[in-house]
C-alpha cells in the first residue's frame, strides 16, 4: 500500500489532487460525477464580500491547447455561501478551501473575518491574481508592495492556513512569492491564468467582451512548471502547483518541481473524471517506482 497523503503547512490532504478555483464551482457540481471524498480537496469558486454579476458574454474563447476566460468572479457573495452552500458541502470528506477576493484591502479583511468563523474551512486561498476584474485582483499581485500589504492585513485576521495565489503576469514571480512569505503566508499557489487575447479576424472584433482574458489549459503547462520550480527554490513555505495539468504525469512533474499539492483546472472541462484518474495514476506511479509515499515526490527533481 502506498501512502497518498501530503501535508500543506499544517493541514493534511488525503492525496495531492485538488481542483482549482473557478473550475470546480462549489464542489457540488463535480459531485454529480464522482464522490467528493475521492480528491484531496477543492479550491472553491472565487468569493467576494458582495454579489458580483461578472463580465458580459462572451466570456470564453477556445485557443490552441487551451482557452481564454473573462468570467470576472461571478458569485453571490460570502453571506449567500455561508447560508446556502456551506451547509450542503460541509460534510464532504475532503479539504474545502475558499478562494478570497476583494477590490480593496478592507474587502479582503471583512471577507476573511467571516471565513475564519467556518469550522470546516481549514485554509483560504488569497486571490491577488485574477486578471479579469477592473479593481483589486491582479493589481495587488503584480507588485511586491501590493502583495505584501494584502497578505499582511489578511494575516492579522486569519489564524488558519493562508495560501496566497500568485499571478504569472509579472517579471519575476519568485520575488512576489518571497514578498508574501515575508508577511506570513503559509503557502503559495501558482499560477493563475496568463493574460491573453483572441480576435475574430473576419469580423475584426475581439472574441471576449473584455478584449483580454486569462489563458489556461495545457498551453500554459511548461511556463507554469518553470514558475513552480523557480518559486519552490526561492521560498521555504510549501507550494501548490497549478497550470495545464491534464494527466497524472503532469501532476507528478509539478510535484517533482516542488509542489506539495496540485490543482486540476481547465482539464475537467474536457473530462470531469480526469481528477479521479490522476489520483489513480499517481498511485500507480508510486508503485512502479517502489515509492512508499506521495510526499517523496515533492521536490525530488534530479538536476
Amino acid at each position: 500500500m502506498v501512502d497518498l497523503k501530503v501535508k500543506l503547512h499544517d493541514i493534511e490532504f488525503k492525496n495531492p489532487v485538488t481542483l482549482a478555483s473557478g473550475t470546480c464551482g462549489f464542489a457540488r457540481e463535480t459531485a454529480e460525477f464522482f464522490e467528493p471524498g475521492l480528491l484531496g480537496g477543492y479550491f472553491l469558486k472565487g468569493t467576494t464580500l458582495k454579489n458580483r454579476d461578472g463580465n458580459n458574454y462572451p466570456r470564453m474563447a477556445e485557443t490552441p491547447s487551451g482557452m481564454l476566460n473573462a468570467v470576472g468572479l461571478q458569485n453571490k457573495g460570502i453571506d449567500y455561501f455561508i447560508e446556502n452552500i456551506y451547509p450542503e458541502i460541509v460534510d464532504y470528506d475532503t479539504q474545502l478551501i475558499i478562494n478570497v477576493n476583494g477590490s480593496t484591502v478592507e474587502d479582503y479583511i471583512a471577507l476573511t473575518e467571516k471565513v475564519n468563523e467556518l469550522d470546516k474551512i481549514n485554509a483560504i486561498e488569497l486571490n491577488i491574481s485574477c486578471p479579469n476584474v477592473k479593481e483589486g485582483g491582479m493589481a495587488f499581485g503584480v507588485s511586491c508592495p501590493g502583495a505584501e500589504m494584502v497578505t499582511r492585513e489578511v494575516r492579522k485576521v486569519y489564524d488558519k492556513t493562508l495560501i496566497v495565489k500568485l499571478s504569472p503576469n509579472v517579471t519575476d514571480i519568485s520575488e512576489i512569492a518571497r514578498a508574501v512569505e515575508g508577511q506570513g503566508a503559509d503557502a503559495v499557489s501558482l499560477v493563475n491564468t496568463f493574460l491573453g487575447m483572441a480576435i475574430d479576424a473576419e469580423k475584426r472584433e475581439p472574441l471576449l467582451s473584455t478584449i483580454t482574458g486569462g489563458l489556461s489549459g495545457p498551453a500554459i503547462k511548461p511556463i507554469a512548471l518553470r514558475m513552480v520550480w523557480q518559486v519552490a527554490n526561492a521560498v521555504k513555505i510549501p507550494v501548490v502547483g497549478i497550470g495545464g495539468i491534464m494527466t497524472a504525469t503532469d501532476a507528478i512533474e509539478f510535484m517533482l518541481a516542488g509542489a506539495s499539492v496540485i490543482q486540476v483546472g481547465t482539464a475537467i472541462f474536457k473530462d470531469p473524471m480526469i481528477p479521479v484518474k490522476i489520483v489513480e495514476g499517481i498511485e500507480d506511479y508510486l508503485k512502479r517506482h517502489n515509492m512508499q509515499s506521495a510526499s517523496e515526490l515533492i521536490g525530488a527533481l534530479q538536476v
Partner: protein
Amino acid sequence: MPKKFVKEFNVIENSALNATNFLIKVQSDTELPEIKPGQFVNVEIKEAEEIFLRRPFSVFEVDKEKNVISMIVKILGRGSRKLTEIKVGSKLSLVYPLGKTFTYPSANDKILLIGGGSGVAPMLFLAKESGLPVENVDILLGARSKEDHINVDSYKQYANLHYASEDGSLGEKGFVTQHSVFTTNLKSYSKVYACGPDGMMRAIAKEAKAANVFCEVSLENLMACGFGVCLCCIEPTTKGNLCVCTEGPVFNINDLKW
C-alpha cells in the same frame, strides 16, 4: 450515485441528411439515464489538434432499449465539421445528460414547435414526447432553401409539418416569423417552443410576448464545461446571470432580458 456521466459510446451510424446536417447515433454498453427533449450531451472531438473543448449537441432521439442516443450535427464550425467525419465503429466520448428539459404540455394544450438550423432536433424530440394528438401539435421549420431542410416526413405521425424557406423553394417564402402559421395563428397556441439561431428566437420571443403566449426557447450560448462550473455560457436573466448549461438551455422568454 452519480447523476451525470462521462463515457465512451460506440458510433453505430453517421449518415448525411443533406449537405450540412448529419445524423450520428451512438450506443452505450450500459443503461442510459432518463434523457428528455432540450437536454444535451457534450461531445469530445478527437484527433483535431486545434480543438480543445467539447462541443454541445441537443439530443435528437433516445432508444432506451438499445441504449442509443441520436443527435443531428449541423456543420457550424471546425468542431462540428470534424465530428461529422467520424467513422462507424469508432468511439465517441460523451458527457451526459446535461441541462434541463422543456415544460411539458398538458393534455389539452395546443402547441407550436419552431426549429431552425441546429435547433430542429430538440423540437422534433419534443413533438414525439409531447403525448398530444397530431392535430394539437404544429411543427414549423425554417431554413435558407429546400436543400438546407432535412427530411422529417416520419414526424407526420406526431405533428402537422410546416416549412419556411428564405428563397421559397420549400413551404412559404421568408422567415419562420413571416409564416402564416405564426402570423395568423400565434394566439391559438397555449404553448410555443423554439430552438435555433439567436435572431430567430428573439424575433419569436418578441411576438410571443406581445401576444401573451407561453413561450420557451432553448439557447445555444458558447460553452466550455457544460455542467455549471466555468460560468462562461451565462445569459442575463431577471434572476441575474445564469448558466445556460445548468439553469437552461431552456428558458421561459419572460425570464430573459430580450
